[in-house]
């Protein structure tokens, strides 16, 4: 029992070491594309981890988180386009190619959108909540398809990644470490949240909203706050993804993207700190692996997901953990 516990506590450390040397290992193995793949995993891990605040902590099944992912990405794309063109956005917001500025802008934009959607969607619950979040995401999807000024259907391309503190962001390894740092900061924040008064109250609301109301907790406001923070995390991931591929398109807001984020959280373990990241790594890893075998990889992935939903309880992050939640 004791050995098991030390083993488990060493796991994150080992994972961190592995992540730290990954670009060098990829270079040494002659597989530089591995670094880009790992960056994608980290970014989607961040997106899933954002969703986890709503889903795992708040018990809010949002089927529309791709909206925040896309809003974050478009914040970067639009600011960068305006910086290049030299004309301010909406006539008064100057464009920028500085990563710090665009990331903050994406946090702000996705936070505002999440605040509005959350305030409206939280009037419903259950299936209606799932569907109303989906409806809002679809609205934004079609809005950006129609926005010809920002590429419409074709999306927006950026000439180069945003600049950050004199680093060479064109280098994939440098960008990888940037994403890794953002992810680690976010995970530290969500770990704090999980064990804070806020996180405990959310857990209470998840178990019995009525009791929490009875002891004077403003349950709707707390859920709304969780939804907003959650949207900001996913928006931040969108901003990084826009930089990774130097491309933004409405496809990032497609409803299947929301579905994939849900799968990552559940696969990894909803309500855990590292679970969503593990889920993202597992899902993208599985997808790339299957895709390298056959072009019809979805015929294997589909039934695997069915099996996962039917048999697997609690997620990868809880494997080997004896005690339940």
């Amino acid at each position, binding site marked *: 029992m004791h050995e098991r516990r030390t083993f488990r506590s060493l796991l994150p450390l080992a994972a961190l070491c592995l992540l730290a040397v990954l670009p060098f290992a990829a270079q040494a193995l002659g597989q530089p594309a591995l670094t880009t793949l790992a960056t994608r995993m980290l970014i989607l891990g961040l997106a899933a981890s954002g969703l986890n605040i709503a889903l795992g902590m708040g018990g809010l*099944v949002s089927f529309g988180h791709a909206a925040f992912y896309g809003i974050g990405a478009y914040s970067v794309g639009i600011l960068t386009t305006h910086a290049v063109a030299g004309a301010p956005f909406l006539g008064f917001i100057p464009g920028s190619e500085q990563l710090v500025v665009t990331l903050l802008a994406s946090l702000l934009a996705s936070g505002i959108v999440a605040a509005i959607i959350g305030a409206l969607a939280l009037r419903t619950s259950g299936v209606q909540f799932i569907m109303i979040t989906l409806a809002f995401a679809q609205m934004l999807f079609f809005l950006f398809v129609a926005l010809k000024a920002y590429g419409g259907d074709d999306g927006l391309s950026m000439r180069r990644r945003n600049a950050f503190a004199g680093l060479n962001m064109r280098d994939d390894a440098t960008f990888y470490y940037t994403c890794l740092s953002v992810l680690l900061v976010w995970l530290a924040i969500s770990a704090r949240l999980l064990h804070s008064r806020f996180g405990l109250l959310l857990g209470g609301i998840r178990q019995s909203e009525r009791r929490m109301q009875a002891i004077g907790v403003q349950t709707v406001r707390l859920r709304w706050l969780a939804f907003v923070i959650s949207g900001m995390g996913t928006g931040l991931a969108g901003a990084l993804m826009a930089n990774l591929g130097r491309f933004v398109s409405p496809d990032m807001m497609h409803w299947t993207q929301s579905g994939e984020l*849900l799968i990552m959280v559940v696969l990894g373990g909803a309500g855990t700190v590292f679970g969503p990241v593990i889920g993202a790594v597992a899902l993208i890893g599985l997808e790339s692996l299957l895709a390298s075998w056959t072009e019809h990889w979805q015929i294997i992935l*589909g*039934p695997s997901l069915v099996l996962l939903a039917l048999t697997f309880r609690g997620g990868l992050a809880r494997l080997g953990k004896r005690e339940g939640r």
Partner: protein
Amino acid sequence: MALVLEQLLNGVQFGVMLFLLAAGLTLIFGVMGVINLAHGSLYMVGAYAAAFVAQRTGSFLLAVPAGLAAAAIAGVIVELVVVRRLYARDHLDQVLATFGLILFFNQLMVLIFGRQPMFVQIPPALSGAVDLGLFSYPVYRLCIIGVGLGTAGALFWFIQRTRIGMLVRAGATHRDMVQALGIDIRVLMTFVFGLGALLAGLAGLMAGPLLSVQVGMGEQILILTFVVVVIGGLGSVAGAFTGALLVGVVDTSLRAFLPAILRGMMNGSEADALAAGISAMGVYLLMALVLLIWPKGLFPSHA
């Protein structure tokens, strides 16, 4: 005036198609409490089977039973293998499992029929147009409206007036009681799921000659179907009917009239793009508004 009436008929035609899908979806939710994202896949299976038979034999009469049978059989298999295990699960597990089913069915169709869309001719007997006084209207679309309304009537009669329909209604509200009366509720559920699949297949095979039959056709209409079901109130067939006509007419009219209205205000291409965007958003806006006013939909059924 003629144009408005014609678009209204188009809206009703789209509405009854949506109803065929929404009826199954809402029954499945009402009786079993399952969100079935794979409902659009059953529609696609029906469309593909009918298109395949129509192309091979050249006969639309043979294509109809083929499409119905394929969708119903696929539905029953899905229920027995997967959905049956989802009744007691929360909505999140149901969303995940049926999302997996979508990937599976889409890729299965690619494997069997390839990536090229299939096109189906409107059967010659139904290909003309009929003069309605103010304007002439395609016979085939009128037929869809007729079949759709007929099916809706039959479904209401079935649920309200027959013994099995009574059990379906009872199963939705008092599952344990129905079981205590000696009814095998699992058989009843398989039946309801098969019925829903049959209706989806009917919509799919009728859609074949109007749209191209291709992978992904199920998801496009699935999301709209969910909008219909949620607007109508989950579990209510009458709600599904109202919601379907509402969504069908609103969606069609926005697409038909908005570009002209906006072109009066701005230049052509910008107006078209904006109109396309707003019309695509329209039904989702409608749903959001309905839910904000009536959080359980227009016809809320039992708790």
